[in-house]
């Protein structure tokens, strides 16, 4: 029995030791890469001060093209949106951005209507992308707010790095191998953080008719984001992107809002009901640049 326990003990110690080394290495390479947005913010953004940043989910990522906006407005911005994330993650992203010693005058939040509307936001699918930074207090305290199993696994990684790396092995371990060889490689976004959906599934031009969609800005993270912005002299702008056939109206107006929900009346510009395609992206970004300039000048 003693020989058995000794054997198993050594086996497990060596296995977990080796796994810990690989996991730490994996997180190290991700931290020093530009593969996911949190690492991109830490390593690829050389500029300290921006005029505006775009935070959001896939909607923010694919609707507002900061390169187009910058060309049209003489402003300098960067897109920090991550697909499959909620406003809670956008809060965390802003904290992370500020923690790198960077600043911005405007923070544009482009979240989904469902996310803006919800009173009980949960953990987002792609939050694991912050795992390389789990030992930072603002990251771990964010995950501490959730009861879900996935949040616990990410939190355990603070002490046992392998926990998160095993659990998200496809999403973290293999990208880290790529990052080790190509630290500048990015996961589906360009040097300014933008991504556009292609001109796919087009059925030609089709005039859209609109129905009204009332929303309440009641996600608790929205107020938290607002507070964080105020503490850092940042103006929060809530941006409502185009939606196929929907005209969003607000039941409350506590925030500065740019509402583009009904500016595209042709199905040609849409990739799916809530995302625009490459053509829509350009149209909307140009219009956004105009509206942002007006907003900065204090015009309605």
């Amino acid at each position: 029995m003693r020989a058995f326990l000794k054997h198993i003990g050594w086996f497990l110690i060596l296995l977990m030791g080796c796994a810990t080394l690989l996991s730490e290495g994996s997180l190290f390479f991700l931290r020093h890469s530009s593969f996911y947005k949190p690492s991109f913010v830490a390593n690829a953004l050389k500029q300290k001060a921006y005029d505006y940043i775009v935070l959001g989910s896939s909607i923010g990522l694919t609707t507002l093209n900061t390169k187009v906006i910058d060309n049209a407005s003489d402003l300098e911005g960067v897109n920090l949106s991550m697909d499959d994330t909620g406003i809670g993650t956008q809060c965390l992203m802003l904290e992370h951005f500020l923690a790198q010693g960077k600043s911005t005058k405007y923070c544009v939040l482009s979240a989904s209507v469902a996310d803006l509307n919800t009173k009980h936001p949960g953990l987002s699918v792609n939050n694991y992308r912050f795992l390389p930074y789990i030992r930072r207090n603002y990251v771990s305290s964010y995950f501490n707010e959730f009861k879900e199993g996935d949040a616990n696994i990410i939190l355990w990684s603070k002490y046992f790095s392998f926990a998160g790396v095993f659990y998200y092995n496809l999403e973290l371990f293999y990208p880290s191998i790529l990052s080790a060889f190509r630290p500048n490689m990015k996961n589906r976004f360009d040097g300014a953080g933008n991504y556009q959906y292609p001109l796919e599934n087009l059925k030609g031009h089709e005039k859209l008719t609109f129905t009204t969609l009332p929303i309440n800005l009641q996600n608790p993270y929205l107020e938290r984001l607002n507070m964080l912005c105020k503490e850092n002299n940042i103006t929060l702008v809530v941006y409502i992107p185009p939606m196929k056939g929907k005209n969003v109206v607000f039941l409350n107006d506590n925030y500065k809002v740019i509402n583009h929900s009904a500016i595209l009346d042709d199905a040609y510009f849409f990739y799916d009901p809530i995302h625009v395609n490459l053509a829509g992206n350009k149209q909307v970004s140009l219009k956004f640049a105009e509206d942002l300039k007006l907003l900065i000048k204090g015009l309605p």
Partner: protein
Amino acid sequence: MLFNSLAFALFLPLVFLLYWFVFNNSLKWQNLLIVVASYVFYGWWDYRFLILIAFSTVVDYVVGKQMEAITKTTKRKLLLGISLVCNLGLLGFFKYYNFFVDTWAEAWLLFGISMERSTLNIILPVGISFYTFQTLSYTIDVYRKKVGATKDLMQFAAYVSFFPQLVAGPIERANQFLPQFRVKRKFDTVFALRGFNLIIWGLFKKMVVADNCAFFVNQIFDHPENHNSMTLFFGAILFGFQIYGDFSGYSDIAIGTGRLFGFRLMTNFKFPYFSRDVAEFWRRWHISLSTWFRDYLYIPMGGSRGTFKQKIRNVLVVFLVSGFWHGANWTFALWGGLHALFILPLFIVKKNRKHIISTRFSVNQIFKISFTFCLVTLAWVFFRADNIELAFEYVMQIFNFSGMALTFFVKTPKIILFSLIVLFSSIVLLMFEFLAVQKNEKEVVLSSKTAFFIGLMILFMGIFKNPETFIYFQF
């Protein structure tokens, strides 16, 4: 409790330590610990169904004892009948009630008569087919006087509920397994280490091979209409690997866990995808079930004796029942029927008895192995499909050669990664099995160094997030 869960990773060492360090001086206490641990293991899923296991245990214990005390054949038959009715009644109710109600109503619809269907919202208790067959083997063997009835309820309860193999086998036989609960277990380091390595191999098969294959299989089988012929063909092959990795992985973990407690469980899989014909496949696939049907159904029906028609009937019945054993769906019956169809020509030319597996791999052998694999894969489509129509559509779509591109497997970087993991892990699986076949081993024997690398593969290639449940739990 799943073998690939954190709960089991904590449960197993705890029970192991209690078993060998606290209760090691008393056989009774060790058996009691096995029963308690097994009930906790099962109750972790749904404690309400523990009553069914307890009921089957008590009925068969009492029936066994009574049967041994009585010499009159009619009374013994009556007791056997009670056991069969109780066990098969529960199995029939939980597994087949809704199916037969639906089938009955649909049959009347053929004559234009619409009947009200009074189906029930029944949850299928995990592993009911496995423990029912195990406990039935006891009463039948006591009736046949092949095994003596046990006088110790705790021993019998431990035999019925032994947690490593309770929910998905191997289905043990009373004459081989029950005596192991009667003798004091001695810890054997080499035996336990082989068990530990077998657990690692089983986890690799399940978490790396099967669960990564499932990523593709689920998408392909859920929407076969979206895929071309080549993708569907590979989808069927991947399901073959998934179900093998899933089920044989479970058996390996069960056998390995049994060894940690000093128990020898029967081999359930012996490298089935190296079979040269379908008859050989059935001597290597789910051995504990096929031998159960052989001993308790095929041979009592006459087996290979009798007229030609009777022999054919016996083969057909065994395969159809075996299909139905897997689930209440005509797809399973058809799967069994297909295997019967594949095996009958061998049976007719009397080539179904070539037992031993050759360790040489000539071109001829490789051709036979590939052909058998194709037949088995074809049958898997019926096993996996939700209904017969979908299964036929799937097969037809494979053979209409609608496209040969494999773009589905390289659509995005993440999918390419899955494809590479599936390819690599399947090669590792086949390579180790090939070496084991060549050495004429009954199972893959890992050295500690190899187990270490397999362990790393599990950690970095296995599916930990939303793992698939074991396929055979539903049976």
